[in-house]
């Protein structure tokens, strides 16, 4: 942890730099989403845009975590506590993914037949 006064004084420049980097990344995200000349993948929103958007967001989040929240030099216990939280958070995401492999509602993905194939009613 940057605890001594000298270290903190030095670190301030880094904080400003990181802040600027975050600003730039934000502008890039918006440009990718709104500017036709920077539109990746197919025209309009698609997987490529999603991947880039989330990738930039992850980099930004990592910077905030590592520099502003001092996670780049933290005690072991903090890594354990926060790491477990993140693993649990990812597990929650996986629940959504697992719901696509639901053999009761959607059947066996290999054979295509399931136990329950309701006709979707028409709404009028």
């Amino acid at each position, binding site marked *: 942890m940057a*605890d001594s*006064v000298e270290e*903190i*004084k030095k*670190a*301030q420049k880094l*904080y*400003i730099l*990181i*802040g600027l980097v*975050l*600003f730039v990344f*934000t502008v890039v*995200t*918006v440009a990718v*989403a*709104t500017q036709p000349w920077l539109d990746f993948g*197919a*025209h*309009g*929103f698609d997987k490529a*845009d*999603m991947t880039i*958007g*989330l990738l*930039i*967001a992850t980099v*930004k*989040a990592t910077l*905030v*975590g590592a520099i*502003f*929240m001092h996670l780049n030099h933290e*005690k*072991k*216990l*903090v890594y354990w*506590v*926060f790491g*477990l*939280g*993140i693993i*649990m*958070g*990812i597990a*929650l*995401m996986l*629940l*959504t993914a697992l*719901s*696509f492999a639901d053999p009761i509602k959607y059947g066996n993905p290999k054979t295509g037949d399931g136990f329950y194939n309701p006709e*979707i009613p028409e709404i*009028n």
Partner: protein
Amino acid sequence: MEIPYTFTARKDTGLFNSKIGIWLFLASEVMLFGGLFSGYVFLRLYADYPWPERALPVLPGLINTFVLIGSSVTVVFAWASLKMRQWGRFQFFMGITIFCAVIFMVLKGLEYNAKWHHQAVRLDDFTILEGHTHKAELDERGHLHIHHEHGAEPTEEEKKRQFPANVVVVEAEEINFTLVRAHDPYVKDILAKAKERGAVPVLADNAFFYGSPKDLPIDAAERKKLEDQLIKSHASGKEAVRFGDKKDSLYIPKDTQLTVDLLDRAEDVYLEARAINGEVRTKVLRKLWKDAREADKEDLPNFKLAEGIQIDPEEHLTGLVAEAPSALTFTFEKPVALHFKRSLIREGEGSSKLKDDTIIKGAVASSPMGLAVDAVDLRWVAQRAHEQGKDPKTVIEGLWIMENPEFKEIWERHSAQLAILTEELKKDGREPTENDKYRIDWQDLVAFHRAHEKHLEPGSPEVADLRPGMFEGITGPNHKIEENQHAFFSIDIPNEKVGFESLFTPKWNNYYAIYFTLTGLHGLHVVGGALVLAYYMFFSKGLYRRNPEWLANRVEIGGLFWHFVDLVWIFLFPILYLM
């Protein structure tokens, strides 16, 4: 008691205690938001309707991102200042941080406000229209009159009379209130509207509430005698009277005027009667079961009776139960036009129902929804056409909205514009999106209107440049600008055409539900964090003098939370605004 390790590190962990505390809390926050993000993914992947893609105006979200990142930097500087023992500098940076929080919330408020005043409606053919409802009022004859014209601000008097043109008008003849469900504000509303039209609802028939079993005569003839007596003695005064031994029975004569108080009194007696009857019934049932079990020769388990043994409490209840009607019906001398917010009423032929189960008998009058349209979304129509193996273009050409000449021109211009875009994209082997093909948003409408004013042919290449920029309408279409008022065409949607309507609230669709959940929860974190930081800024001078290191630790903890709030927004912004 002294709290240990507030500013010195514990030997085994190397941390002061509150730091472990905040990281535990942040870990739980990761799971809270993680679950909600997961919910967002789930809703989006399973959506069986066109997802509102890039539907929010980007600018407020972008500014808010800058604001939060900026405040993240300043909060670190505030902490660093304390570490260097510079109180003034600490206050300066903390002040900026809190100011940023205020800007963030103000922008959020503007954004929410725009949503809450923006109307959406899905027609029965799955056309989606967005816009602002016009003002309307009922004229002397009770006909709905919609004010399409903009211009002069209405006077106070007019404002009172007018309401959003999103109502159902019923020619009410009879109103039936369910006593336990009747919602006082609705009753008051009906009374006020009836009064405006010079009508008073009166009780349709004599109502007798025998709130105590003792008051209820066993014999039918006796009962008739009692009721006749009551009717006779209270023929002149039209108000409810208590009668019977314990004064908990109620007689309301025919033609008594409806009041909230009257319904409340009736409800009280009804509830009392119901409570008494519940008790009596339980007692009788218990006794019947006991007798039946005793009579039962075989030793069966408690819940089972031998075949042939029936338990019917009804015939054993005579003379023991109270009797009170659960609903009261009021009538009007002649049909009175009453209007109800569309979301509060389920209208039917001859009889409609309010949300509190109040039944209103009477014909539904012509009640079109008056809308100044600022976006037309035909993606759902197209999706359904695809699903049914039809050609979307032909389906769209047969839509009800095509009967509107203004929209017809807009569609023509849109189709021509789309053709240009398709040609352009073809060069790179790309295709227009569903959004390009089937959604006409407010910027398009303004561009088409400008093209119309300039007498440009549909499909002129200049039209694309006429679209309003990012700064014209920061939180969405602005209906106060005169040009927009001309660009956003008016339409009266007949009542039976309206499939589903809502403001842009969580009710409209799952996207707005998760949008408000996520941003609302995040906003609460901003407010909470700002309050804590403000406490450090304004009320911690004493602590700073006594133990500056302790205060620095506190600010570090608050700062960690603040960074986390920023971190959540870093994901929220692209996911909700850009995808």
